[in-house]
């Protein structure tokens, strides 16, 4: 079975996972339509494109792919009448370690995504859209392609959709096992059939020079699935579920050392980290305690389970006050995690308990980034490999006193010095593990040369 528990936790509110957790729900058109499917497309086609974009803005929807950019603002970068072809590319690469939500949408509710694609394309003036799916989901590629064919046969895609004159073609494009292709400009290069080296921004913002050098929106699978629900609930109602600036529900994927790992869908900001890990995920395994938490996919900076977060909050009279809270009392939304120096990212929460060695944990991630660096930028290509070699050597008993310092300096020399954000993704684990668990690195780095 899957990582979504059949019975929702009382705090959960399933919208994205609403259909697919119904008993007997099948990924075909008939079932989707019986659950109210494609009604929002009908509604959208009677609206103006700019009214749809305004609704997405008012809903405070943030991208669910990792960077958390406000979706409506991204969409408003596309000029309706620039005379150029526009493209929509859906990011179904789902390869950020700790993230496992798009998998269920793609396999179990493809029409929800396709309805979202059709509405988004109408709003953005798109006539050709691609859904990029990592090739490790071979069944999903077939399921989504079959759903596209069904939707086309029923008049929800193709020429003259529902008699409105709007036409849209959608195709599935499979990746080939490279994490970098999740980065949006790499994904575009991959889709163009080139070696997927990310493009530099500026000037290559997808909204300006995207697919085939034309205006393009790249959105995560989950982000696009939220669009029909924004129209269904109305943007105000939708936004109200979340926090100001982070509307709607969010899927949070919890894995690692908890009793009940899983993919949960919660209103943004509805729970603290403590409620997520104890009430929803059942706490640590018997006799153990939490030690470290990576809150937003492997690239997010690690938190120590016993650390205090110092931050500024607005007091009742509007002045800024200093506040100190337990890390576990952080609210799970974009702003609160950013305030703690990390990010909610893709919503992948990875938990380590007191039996885990932090050097070993970091080494696992370092090996990931070393394997996945595309090799375009020297600091990342050389640095990610160097960091992995160093942490491996330390674990093998060859730790030298200067290693933590050197590791940090390598990471510091990658972050901010690469074409794409992989550089940060690769260095944040090393920087944060060294900062949060210096004692474990010092304990293993004992040789004097």
């Amino acid at each position, binding site marked *: *079975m*899957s*990582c979504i528990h059949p019975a929702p936790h009382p705090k959960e509110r399933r919208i994205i996972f609403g259909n697919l957790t119904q008993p007997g729900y099948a990924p075909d058109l008939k079932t989707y339509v019986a659950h109210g499917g494609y009604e929002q497309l009908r509604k959208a086609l009677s609206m103006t494109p700019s009214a749809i974009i305004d609704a997405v803005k008012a809903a405070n929807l943030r991208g669910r792919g990792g960077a958390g950019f406000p979706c409506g603002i991204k969409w408003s970068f596309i000029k309706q009448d620039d005379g150029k*072809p526009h493209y929509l590319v859906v990011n179904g690469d*789902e*390869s*950020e*370690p*700790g*993230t*496992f939500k*798009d*998998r269920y949408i793609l396999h179990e509710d493809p029409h929800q995504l396709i309805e979202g694609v059709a509405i988004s394309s109408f709003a953005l003036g798109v006539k*050709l859209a691609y859904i990029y799916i*990592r*090739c*490790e*989901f*071979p*069944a999903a590629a077939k399921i989504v392609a079959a759903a596209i064919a069904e939707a086309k046969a029923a008049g929800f895609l193709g020429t003259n959709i529902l008699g409105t004159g709007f036409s849209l*073609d959608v*195709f599935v*494009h*499979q*990746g*080939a*096992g*490279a*994490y970098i292709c999740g980065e949006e400009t790499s994904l575009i290069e*991959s*889709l*163009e*059939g*080139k*070696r*997927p080296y990310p493009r530099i921004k500026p000037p290559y913002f997808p909204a300006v020079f995207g697919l*085939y050098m034309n205006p393009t929106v790249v959105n995560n699978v989950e982000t696009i699935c939220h669009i029909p629900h924004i129209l269904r609930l109305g943007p105000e109602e939708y936004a109200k579920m979340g926090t100001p600036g982070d509307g709607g529900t969010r899927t949070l*994927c*919890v*894995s*690692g*050392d908890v009793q009940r*790992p*899983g*993919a949960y869908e919660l209103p943004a900001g509805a729970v603290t980290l403590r409620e997520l890990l104890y009430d929803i995920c059942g706490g640590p395994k018997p006799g153990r305690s939490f030690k470290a938490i990576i809150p937003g996919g*492997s690239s997010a900076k690690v938190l120590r389970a016993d650390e205090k977060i110092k931050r500024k909050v607005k007091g009742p009279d509007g002045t800024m006050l200093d506040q100190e809270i337990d890390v576990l009392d952080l609210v799970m939304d974009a702003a609160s995690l950013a305030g703690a120096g990390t990010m909610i990212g893709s919503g*992948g929460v*990875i938990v*380590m308990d007191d039996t*885990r060695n932090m050097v070993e*944990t970091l080494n*696992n*991630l370092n*090996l*990931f980034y070393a*394997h*996945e660096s*595309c090799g375009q930028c020297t600091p990342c290509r050389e640095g990610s490999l160097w960091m992995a070699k160093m942490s491996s050597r330390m674990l093998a008993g060859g730790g030298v006193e200067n290693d933590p310092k050197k590791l940090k300096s390598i990471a510091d020399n990658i972050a901010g010095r690469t074409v794409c954000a992989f550089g940060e993704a690769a260095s944040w684990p090393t920087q944060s593990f060294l900062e949060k668990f210096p004692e474990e690195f010092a304990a293993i780095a004992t040789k004097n040369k």
Partner: protein
Amino acid sequence: MTGNTTANGGRQADSIPANFILEANEILSHYPVSKRSASLPLIHLWQNHFGHIDPSGIEWIAAKLDLQPINIYELVTFYPWFRQTAPGKNIIRVCRTLSCALAGSKDLYEKFCETIGIDIEEARAHHGDGMPVSPDGNYSIEFVECLASCGSAPVCMVNDELHERVAPEDVPSLLSRSTSPAN
């Protein structure tokens, strides 16, 4: 699943069936703006059919798309999914990344290696460079990065299918259930 490899050493491009061409043309129709976009799907089609990509495949795909062979070769060598040597009949992929590692995927990987008769050191040496093949030709194994199922760790794929929460002791029955026997 990966039949039709030209184990006899012939050029793969000399044994392309008619329906392969039809499928290739269908793929091309998905990319009305640029044929080059069909590179990745055509390489997939080739590898799915022949099991791996030989130089004649690289040339055939390049010619089909009006590209130079280097344009295809640079993709075949970049993407971890593609290979230029024949794999075993069944491919096992065990997730190596953090959540699966915490749940014991290293033991799982080692148990697979032991069961199918592949030396772990040899398998490690192959990481990113073709796949080791078991002595009976029936299996290949790879340690892969996060398969996006971290909540049911440790996970592995056997051919196209995902298996979740796999314990080392499940390996023999899993192999007999989900792989095809040697010829």
